[in-house]
């Protein structure tokens, strides 16, 4: 969704590329694409399957935002076990009643032991860090790639805060 922070320039990107799948586009299949942008850390087995699937169908994969790049705040969970985290939320929280069930139906992704950044699971071609990632940098990287150039992501362009 950080992609939308480029505001009106999304229309410039749309002029150069077909945005075939995103939270704002309805298509539910993942076709072969030139560029895939992935946000978020890998938390569940489903995320892992998805990111591998995306990698296999994309020429270029961009990790967007600190969660994708470093696992950031979600990785705070790595200090505790997943069982402790689940018990805290679904059993011990002050507002919980005593008749609750643990979310474990087969539709749900299973938590991995550790939360991981994207590059620990798949090859990442470009990293755009930031929380939020800079809209100008997102637009710069996309317009370079869409014009067949290699974006220059020197140190001074990268900001993690």
């Amino acid at each position, binding site marked *: *969704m*950080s992609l*939308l*922070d480029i*505001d*009106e320039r*999304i*229309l410039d990107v*749309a002029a150069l590329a077909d*945005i*075939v799948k995103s*939270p*704002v*586009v*309805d*298509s*539910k*299949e993942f*076709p072969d694409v030139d560029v895939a942008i992935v946000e*978020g*850390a890998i*938390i*569940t087995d*489903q*995320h892992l399957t*998805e990111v591998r699937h995306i990698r296999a169908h994309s020429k270029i994969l961009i990790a967007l935002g600190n*969660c994708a790049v470093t696992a*950031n*705040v*979600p990785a*705070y*969970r790595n*200090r*505790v076990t*997943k069982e*402790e*985290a*689940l018990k*805290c*939320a*679904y059993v011990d*929280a*002050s*507002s*919980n*009643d005593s*008749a*609750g*069930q*643990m*979310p*474990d*139906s087969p*539709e*749900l*992704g299973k*938590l991995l032991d550790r*939360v991981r950044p994207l590059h620990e699971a798949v090859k990442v071609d470009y990293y755009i860090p930031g*929380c*939020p990632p800079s809209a100008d940098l997102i637009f710069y990287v996309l317009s370079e790639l869409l014009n067949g150039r290699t974006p220059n992501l020197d140190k001074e362009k990268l900001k993690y805060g």
Partner: protein
Amino acid sequence: MAEPSSYSKKIIINPVTRIEGHASITIDLGRDGKVADAHFHVNEFRGFEKFCEGRPFTEMPSIAPRICGICPVSHAVASVKACEDIMRLIPPPAATLLRRVMHLGQMVSSHALSFFHLSSPDFLLGFDSDPAKRNIIGLAEKFPDLAKRGIRLRKFGRECSERIAGKNIHSVGITPGGMNLGLSEENRKALLAWIPESIETVRIGLDIFKRYRQKHMVEVDSFANFETLYLGTVGPQGELELYDGKLRFINEKGEILNDQIDPRQYLEFIAERSLAFSYLKSPYYKPLGFPKGMYRVGPLARLNVASSISTPLAQKEFTEYRQIGGKKPLHGTFYYHYARLIEALYAVEEMKNTLENPRVTSSEILACAKRNQAEGIGCSEAPRGTLFHHYVTDENGILTKVNLLIATGQNNAGMNRSILEVAKKQVDGPNVKEGALNRVEAAIRCYDPCLSCSTHAIGAMPLVIEIRDADQRTVRVIQRAK
């Protein structure tokens, strides 16, 4: 062996597009082939409540907004209020004004995203139009001026945070005790300059909704229309309030159940049930128990509980809105969109009032205190509904317990029920049309759920519908054709 007609089936929609976060839907068919039940599976979990334990409480206003990139200001506000409760401190008036501007700005940008980017393609291009075009970019091809207006309205909202706190989201401006950064006269003027255009854009949105309603009256009125209780924040006279106020519960007839509740008492009125099919818990109104105490929050709920709106243009719209239901609350889920636009209008008008307050550029914006009690509770109205942060600390100010009650969670029961109502009308056996599936999803989109928020998880990938038979066999998985 059973006859094919004698077992029932299940539909899955996965991923649900045009919502924030990650979810799927299962539709269970009975032996007669009709829809028997529906479940909305929210599939994200991060565990904030656990991993924040052991950290100083003063870190929470920086960590908690990371729950969500759409409503970080609401999290920051609820969080600093909980911290200030622990410190027994009242922030300076100018700091409250600045927080209000940021909070109203976020309401505008989030509501703009929900209406113009995510929902207006259904209104303007049609529920049954080409899925590949049914988005903000398809909208821009057909209605370029409108799409740009929607994009700019969202930009204005984010600019409020940027001009006060230097960053459009996850700023460091809001801090326990007040604000780290103030508003310059130049930035105040720049924000005020946005007001006329923003009011105009929201009114265009209202016009789109009203015209759609005129044309599709029956569908709009009957779309996922079911009775629930409602919760929202109101001011001292029962007027709509988003930043600071007291809670009001009403019943399905519109009668007030509890009024002017201090948010610190939330545990007396709200309990949550964990359910196996979702990482999203189901809160309920405690006096009535589960599931009878199902209530809804967010724009529809806030306008159902409010007695009035303090700004003139929004009050005029509110009067018109209220006439639809007469004395009763509006239960039709589609009216979330309408209520959201009226709130956006209020937010822009109220932002103008706040920015015109001479105190807003004051530099007296930060008070100091240490921990003065163990426990603190903070509340604010997030774009999607009432939000609670509840912290318990030890004598060194280290968090020993954290409870977060998120807006979307409180609409969980409502979303499940809405899907069931729509599925009953749109799905008959496993043969389902694309437009029908989009309507099931549209029911969820009315609530504008931010699933990352509500399960404290980050997810950017959207939904699948699975149809299951009465023996829990999957008979169809629906992934839209491109």
